[in-house]
């Protein structure tokens, strides 16, 4: 019995000792860093990550955690992990609207150490927005996303420039029986609706939260914009069901050739060029309509990398980020997956221009792109707006009443936020 115990103790001691020795001798172990990305991004960057690990063999090893497909679920996952404090994640790929929230809570680290003015200048102007909070950079962009107007080249010579023209052309085509619907977009009560609205709102000369921190939702231009969206439905230019459409539903209808126009992100272009699409080679891309005398606007939605505050390997993390966002990487991602690049130089790349005729349109849209309000309480503001808009679109509320109540609610949210802070 005693001998047995003794044996066990000896084996145990030996095991402990040997593991210490191995631990000591293994000082050249590579630095482990971990990045969380939504599933599509994790998949498309897989080759680049492999390449990065090859080049940094023995020094840095990057592992990608494949998050959920849905963007908001990725946010949930990241938040749950960050709330716990000691997150295993070093790098987080985040959406433009999450940035103020994460920066304000101190979950992500400023990038001052690594980013200088030169670096910022290498990025196309539109994509420079939405990376900073309180004048400090917190995020480095990987992909730009902008709202675009898709139109049918086979049905018209020129895309419409104004809201009125869009309705007029739609009605004409609908009356001629060429298309079932004029215009499909994202009318479901979710973030996409805020994106749609921001473009229309700016197109009518209005604003959501202006530079002096004032809400302007109850102004004439805002009500005009709201009215126009409602009119799309009442005039049957858009199907009634648009009030439950997100991107896939809109694309589905446009893809089958049932609609003359669609509002969507750049990813849709590649989808529409697939053999299964009924509108292959019949689609043009342009910027959103705007009232006469107003400049069109594209809502900026972009993805970029941030480094978590609690990361112990920030330098290594930055190294990985700059690799994944390099011109070469972005070029590869564009050619392979149609990701809109953020590096200014790439918009003049001959190979890329040859590959994609819409690149100049994307550049144009990026130049006029606008971010959504940059505040930690953006989610609340967007939620209020979505509710009111959804009520208007489904005929529950009068546009003017809805926008006034959106204005009041938004002001209250901002007020209570300000009160708490002081």
């Amino acid at each position, binding site marked *: 019995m005693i001998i047995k115990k003794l044996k066990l103790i000896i084996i145990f001691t030996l095991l402990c000792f040997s593991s210490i020795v191995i631990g000591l001798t293994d000082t050249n172990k590579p630095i482990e860093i971990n990045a969380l990305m939504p599933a599509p991004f994790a998949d498309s960057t897989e080759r680049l990550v492999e390449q990065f690990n090859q080049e940094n063999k023995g020094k840095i090893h990057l592992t990608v955690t494949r998050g959920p497909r849905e963007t908001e679920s990725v946010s949930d996952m990241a*938040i749950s992990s960050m709330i716990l404090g000691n997150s295993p994640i070093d790098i987080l790929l985040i959406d433009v609207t999450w940035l103020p*929230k994460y920066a304000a809570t101190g979950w992500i680290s400023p990038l001052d150490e690594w980013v200088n003015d030169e670096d910022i200048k290498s990025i196309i102007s539109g994509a420079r927005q939405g990376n900073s909070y309180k004048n400090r950079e917190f995020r480095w962009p990987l992909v730009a996303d902008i709202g675009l107007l898709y139109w049918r080249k086979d049905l018209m010579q020129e895309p419409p420039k104004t809201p009125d023209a869009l309705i007029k052309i739609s009605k004409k085509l609908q009356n001629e029986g060429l298309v079932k619907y004029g215009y499909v977009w994202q009318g479901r009560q979710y973030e996409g609706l805020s994106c749609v609205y921001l473009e229309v709102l700016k197109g009518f000369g209005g604003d959501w939260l202006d530079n002096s921190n004032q809400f302007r939702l109850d102004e004439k231009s805002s009500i005009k914009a709201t009215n126009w969206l409602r009119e799309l439905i009442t005039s049957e230019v858009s199907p009634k*069901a*648009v009030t*439950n459409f997100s991107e896939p539903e809109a694309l589905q209808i446009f893809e089958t050739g049932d609609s003359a126009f669609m509002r969507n992100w750049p990813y849709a272009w590649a989808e529409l060029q697939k053999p299964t699409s009924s509108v292959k080679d019949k689609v043009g891309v342009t910027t959103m309509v705007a009232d006469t005398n107003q400049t069109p606007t594209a809502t900026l939605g972009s993805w970029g990398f941030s480094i978590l505050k609690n990361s112990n390997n920030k330098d290594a993390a930055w190294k990985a980020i700059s690799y994944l966002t390099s011109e070469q990487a972005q070029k590869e991602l564009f050619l392979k997956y149609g990701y809109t690049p953020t590096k200014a130089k790439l918009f003049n790349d001959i190979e890329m221009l040859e590959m994609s005729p819409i690149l100049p349109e994307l550049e144009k849209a990026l130049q006029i792109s606008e971010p959504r309000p940059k505040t930690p309480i953006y989610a*609340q503001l967007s*939620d209020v707006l979505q509710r009111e808009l959804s*009520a208007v679109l489904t005929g*529950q509320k009068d546009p003017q009443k809805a926008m006034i109540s959106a204005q009041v609610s938004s002001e209250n949210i901002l007020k209570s936020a300000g009160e*708490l802070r002081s």
Partner: protein
Amino acid sequence: MIFLFAPAALFLILVFVLPLIRYCWISVHALSVITNLEMIPNYGANWIRLYNDQRFWQDSFQTIRFTVTSVSLEILFAIAIALLLDQRWRGRGVVRALTILPWALPTTVMALGWRWIFNTPHGPIEQIISLLGFESINILSNPNIAWIATVIGDVWKTTPFIALILLAGLQSIPNDLYEAFRLEGGSSRQALFNITIPLLKQYLLIGILFRTAQAFGVFDLIQIMTGGGPASSTESLALYAYLNAMRFLDFGYSATIMLGSFILLVFSCLLAWLIFNQIKKIQL
């Protein structure tokens, strides 16, 4: 004796009492992105906000509406299914196994399925309607009726669960009772109301209580089918609490909403129980 209860009690305290106490504590604090996630006492401000929050009351109404309709329909269908499965007929085993399928399916999968089914104009329902020459109903886009679609999804998924409970109940009723009743000149309809239903009561009660609590906290189904829209007409309390915690990073108010809905749930269950007892007294 205490040793026998201790593990269960400890378990309950750990998973139920402690979180509840913590929620209570959080609910009297400001804890949000604005406070830099620091707890600052705000002396019941959350509760006053909750009381004045129209959206909370609207969601409460919607949640109760969803719960009551879903659970009643589920009970009715479940009784029918259980009665059918209790009979002996060819292929019953296969059908029994199939019946459980919706319950076994992950909610996310089946919610996506329903979203597609109700989708306009490509979903099958709209296709059938337009084939029959009727006007499109746009169920998920209509704030007045979108909630019915969520009820349909929920009923489809959870009816098998109640049916299974009731089937177990049915099988515990001895056949003798029905035969004795038949010999006394009773019809099978009379047997249903005088023997089956009364003897199923405790099983029904389990089903109702369990489902009420579950339906009251409905989240994933609605999140996927409608996201709470259109015009927040399908938003449930759980969805609102989730929005506050995970989107707005306002944990203080989110905890208050959760506690508010917990109180509502307790009241609803009490009410359901009282009504149930009243019915029990009236019958025979």
